[in-house]
């Protein structure tokens, strides 16, 4: 089955984020303005009789309906993107197995004879070709860790006895910082890794050098 859009988790995130953020900012501004208005307009003063109105169900239903509509729109946006991210079925993807442990990472390229290992004293760096889909198979050897690449706006748990599969697509070139984002014991804060995003030819050279 072909994918409905690009695999980049970063662009997926940005799309959903901008919708949620601006609706959220809009609602926040609205509430601040209305509360501010109430504070100024309905301040107690000589001769002000408080209203005895205690209920207006049409307003309640109207507001509930409006919020329900916003919720429906947000959930629709989320579901649409989630469906894309759940679909990890590209046959031509570069496969990388990731094994997290206290407190380091092991990256294996199946069928390539390449493995990169490093821990909190010696941060490992692995390489990916830019613009291609990378299929990760993530697991852990001891406790639960999480594989987070902030630049990709994506993370997934590494759970012992379970393999989580997901795709990423790296744009441009350079190094992305990755880290563990699930508290996993003493040296959790030092459990980091790097990703070299390389052109196809540099990537092949990198593989050859690490065989």
């Amino acid at each position, binding site marked *: 089955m072909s994918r409905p859009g690009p695999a980049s988790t970063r662009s997926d995130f940005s799309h959903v*984020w901008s919708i949620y953020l601006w609706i959220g900012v809009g609602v*926040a501004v609205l509430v601040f303005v209305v509360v501010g208005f109430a504070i100024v307009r*309905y301040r107690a003063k000589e001769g002000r009789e408080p209203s005895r109105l205690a*209920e207006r169900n049409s307003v309640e239903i109207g507001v509930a309906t409006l*919020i329900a509509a916003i*919720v429906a729109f947000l959930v629709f946006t989320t579901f649409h993107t989630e469906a894309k991210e759940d679909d990890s079925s590209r046959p031509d993807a570069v496969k990388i197995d990731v094994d997290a442990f206290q407190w380091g990472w092991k990256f294996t390229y199946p069928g390539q004879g390449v493995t990169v290992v490093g821990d909190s004293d010696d941060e490992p760096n692995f390489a990916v070709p830019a613009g291609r889909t990378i299929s990760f198979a993530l697991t852990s050897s001891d406790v639960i860790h999480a594989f987070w690449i*902030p630049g990709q706006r994506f993370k997934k748990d590494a*759970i012992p006895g379970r393999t989580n599969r997901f795709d990423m697509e790296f744009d441009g070139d350079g190094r992305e910082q990755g880290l563990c984002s699930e508290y996993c014991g003493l040296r959790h804060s030092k459990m980091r890794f790097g990703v070299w995003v390389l052109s196809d030819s540099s990537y092949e050279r990198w593989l050859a050098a690490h065989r």
Partner: protein
Amino acid sequence: MAGGAPVAVEVERGAGLERGLAWLVATDHKKTAAKIAVVSLFFFLLSGLLALTMRAELAQPGLQFVSDHTYDELFSMHGSGMIYLFLTPAALALGLYLVPLQIGASQIAAPRLALFGFWIYLIGGVSMYSGFLTDNGAGSATWTATIPLSDSAGTPGVGMDLWVIGVGLATLGSLLIAITILFTILRLRAPAMTMLRMPVFSWTMLATTFTVVAAFPVLIGAMCLLLAERHIGGIFTGSTGSIAYQHIFWFYGHPVVYVMFFPFVGAVGETVATFARKRFFGYRALVVSLLFFTALSMAVWGHHMFITGAVKNQYYALTSTMLAIPAGIEYLDLIGTMIGGALVFRAPMLFALGFILQFLIGGLTGIIVASPPLDYHVNGSYFIVAHFHYTLFAGSLFGLLAGLHYWFPKATGAMLRERLAKASFWVLVLGANLTFFPMFFLGYEGMPRRVADYEPRFGDLNLLSTIGAGVIAVGILMVLGNMVLSVRRRIPAGNDPWGAQTLEWWTTSPPPLRNFTSLPPIRSYAPLQDLREAGEEREERAEVAA
């Protein structure tokens, strides 16, 4: 030594001791609530001190004051202390004190059970904190104790066992206290006090205690299983075991969020109505939304597990986002109460406004993290820390302070110093936002939570946050100082210093042992407002007649 003076002192001391003992074993709901309040305040200060130590360490990158392991104990115990030992019991103490007074009851159902709950909670708290005295230190597997990190290999030591036992006991204590409140609401209302005449706060306590009864036994069970796992093993094995633990934990762990929210919505609702000089707007809609909220809150726990890949994310995204609907109704009703009122900005009202506007930021960012594609980035980061501190600190704690400033004259018979209270409000607003707003940016830019050390580029925002924590500490000291000053040099409050609307303001301050010597007619959720309006109408008729 000659003379009678020393003897007199002896007698006085003896009487004081006797009074103290009598207070400790007293089963009156107000005294049990006061005991819970005092102990939860103690744990709040202790857990707050841990947070200040953490902020001191985080002021600059690198390790300055504490080791990695000490830091792990600090954040684990800070979170555990605040949730299990402070906000939950403090919310219940507020209910235990006020619900009987609001519904015209002379006592609670099962007063000795509530007192027993208090002692169990206290023992749990002491157990949890005594971990600091053991070789490996206190529990250090976060406030959620996720398997397998929390098993005997992942977190060895007696301190972690004391944590597990402490959480189980404190939660059992809270459960027992909640049960007495729930049964008081269901069984002991004054004759004319129908369910739909209960004040807003009592309704929020009904929703709260209902949630407690449904969710807390699950955590108690989880702690028993965790203890067995640590000593016998074979319970949470493999990936299914660790996922099962998370399901069980969050089945408690999400509803408890509303236990720490509903009561403060109620406290803020009462405060806003009183200081708007207007009865609460949209009472029946609020009741419906609370029930909807309660039901929904039991069906959203999986959103804590979006990145495990082991739950149906769409389902939990849907239910979690739907929480915006009852939350929106509550906001509409709070603001609707202000519109058309004659607003008086006394200290409780300021704290209530602080709750409304600051919780909003926590609530709206909650909608953001309810979307899995967004959670995939911010989960486990400082964004989450910012989000839930906006709900729990800038929200719930401000709501608690609104309630505390509002009901303090009722419970003590003395008014708080108004100017000091207002000053403490502004200091706390400054401190809360300075501390927690930078964390949104830190998390978004890639700083994970639960780390003692971080990349140098995060230094400036962390320093800002640490300064904010110091400001918060000053604000809290001002609130405490105000309370001490106000009970020492008393300005008498009288029965109803605010011109309030509900039954607790009908009786004396503090209320007598059996709460009431008389009750006014109860024809709505605001009986004192009914009396006031009836009086005004009589006056108007008299004027017209004249």
